[in-house]
């Protein structure tokens, strides 16, 4: 019962946020935080629930962003077509990529995903006839629902917030279902899981496809909010930053990636003078968390319990 009260309070606060805080700069941070919260949650499915390394997640983010941007600019399609197209295409790429790659173990899988991230960025840069090369894609239209143009920060905030909440609800339900349980069994001991009838490769592919699709969704939101994208954003460094959000927030929890995204998006903005040191700070924070609290801020302290 207490949990439900907290939930209602949180929702009310979130809903009132842009009404109370009218500073556009802060509203902008809030929207970007929501978008990265979705992106971090998508990586959380892989890294947190199944323990699959993905060191190239910015690649999916980029594929989603570019797909949505191209469909709505060159393709002159409405936002919803771009949005759904981004989700479907990115999920498909994730699915096709995962089939051969998920048979690799540990370090080899990490290297394959890293390569994916690098290759994707290079394709976005060099396929000039499609992606405009280094010039990127300008003039991406606002997101729009049938009746409404999401042309202000406030409208975009509510849209991304609602999407984030729906996604979190869906993931919450998924993680508690037999499919979610299968993810956890694979994470804890894949050999024992297989002996109990879990088709490990199939569930890894499901996780990967779902993760890619959600990352593509975040990419679409990003493109239509920023109205300009180029290859530079979708780099291995960005992949590393998303990974940091997941780890710092608490990779095995539902809300950990969200917290990590909010912290690692908003704090650097508030420390504008330190923007040159942004990557250094991320690196140091990540190492500190891994050393002293590897389960992340929201993670349970099972490390200590397990070592008893």
């Amino acid at each position, binding site marked *: 019962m207490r949990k439900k009260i907290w939930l209602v309070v949180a929702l009310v606060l979130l809903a009132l946020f842009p009404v109370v805080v009218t500073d556009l700069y802060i509203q902008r941070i809030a929207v970007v935080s929501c978008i990265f919260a979705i992106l971090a949650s998508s990586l959380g499915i892989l890294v947190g629930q199944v323990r699959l390394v993905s060191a190239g997640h910015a690649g999916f983010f980029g594929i989603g962003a570019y797909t949505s941007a191209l469909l709505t600019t060159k393709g002159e399609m409405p936002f919803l077509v771009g949005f759904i197209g981004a989700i479907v295409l990115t999920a498909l790429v994730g699915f096709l990529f995962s089939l051969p790659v998920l048979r690799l173990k540990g370090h080899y899988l990490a290297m394959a995903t890293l390569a994916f991230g690098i290759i994707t960025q290079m394709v976005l840069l060099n396929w000039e006839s499609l992606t405009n090369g280094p010039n990127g894609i300008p003039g991406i239209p606002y997101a729009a629902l049938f009746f409404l143009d999401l042309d202000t920060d406030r409208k975009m905030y509510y849209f991304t917030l609602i999407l984030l909440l729906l996604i979190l609800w869906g993931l919450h339900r998924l993680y508690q279902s037999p*499919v979610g349980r299968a993810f956890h069994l694979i994470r804890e*001991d894949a*050999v024992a899981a*297989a002996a109990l009838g879990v088709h490990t490769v199939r569930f890894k592919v499901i996780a990967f496809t779902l993760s890619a699709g959600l990352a593509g969704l975040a990419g679409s939101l990003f493109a239509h909010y920023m109205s300009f994208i180029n290859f530079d954003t979708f780099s291995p460094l960005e992949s590393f930053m998303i990974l940091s959000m997941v780890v710092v927030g608490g990779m095995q929890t539902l809300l950990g990636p969200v917290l990590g995204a909010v912290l690692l998006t908003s704090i650097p903005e508030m420390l504008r003078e330190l923007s040159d040191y942004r990557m250094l700070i991320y690196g140091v924070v990540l190492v500190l968390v891994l050393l002293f609290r590897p389960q992340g801020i929201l993670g349970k302290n099972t490390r200590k319990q397990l070592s*008893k």
Partner: protein
Amino acid sequence: MDDFSYSIEEGKRIGLIGPNGAGKSTLFNLLSGAVKPTGGTIEIAGKDVTGQRPDQFSRHGIARTFQNIRLFKGLTVFENVLAGFHQKSDLNILRGIFGSSSYRQSEREIREQAEHLLQSFGLIDKRNELAVHLSYGDQRRLEIVRAMATGPRILFLDEPAAGMNPYESRQLVELIRQLWEEHRLTVVLIEHDMDVVMRLCEEILVLDYGKLIFHGTPDEVRESSIVREAYLGGETDA
């Protein structure tokens, strides 16, 4: 394995013994799909299952425990047993997210069955403890409970009595015998504890260097000079 060929009869209690490195666990790995054979075939009830995955073997009715206990350490006792019901769960993603009534019914049923199982194995009091916190004997028992949750026809137990004192191993023998009787299982057991093997098994296979060097009843094995030689002049455990 070296030219190993044998037919496990349904409903029997079979022991698998031999010196360390004889290939006993390797045989278990082959018969549960954890490892693929480089030659030869494996059949279950006449069906050729050579080269299939472990989860496919599980669907054919094979369940196993592991030599070094592979419980899900970070999960509770209840969650470990629930894991055994994976095959019986509703694995549909959309039904799981939106919670249709058939899905909720299915979840209710397997949870009830898991509780029931824990109850009959005397582990219900510890249902919310992390598996890693159980005593060694309880952990071994939990691994067997979890294997039984899959509803198997054959149970492969890899050194289930390892590390147990005589009292605990007697209890284990009782437990396995009960399971065998109640569920009409076929039980195959790797053990170094001769007391357990002699008490429980009707037929014993003796392995050495991957070869099946002898098989027979406990008495025949006890008398056999071939077996004695393989163990270098005597029984390994008093």
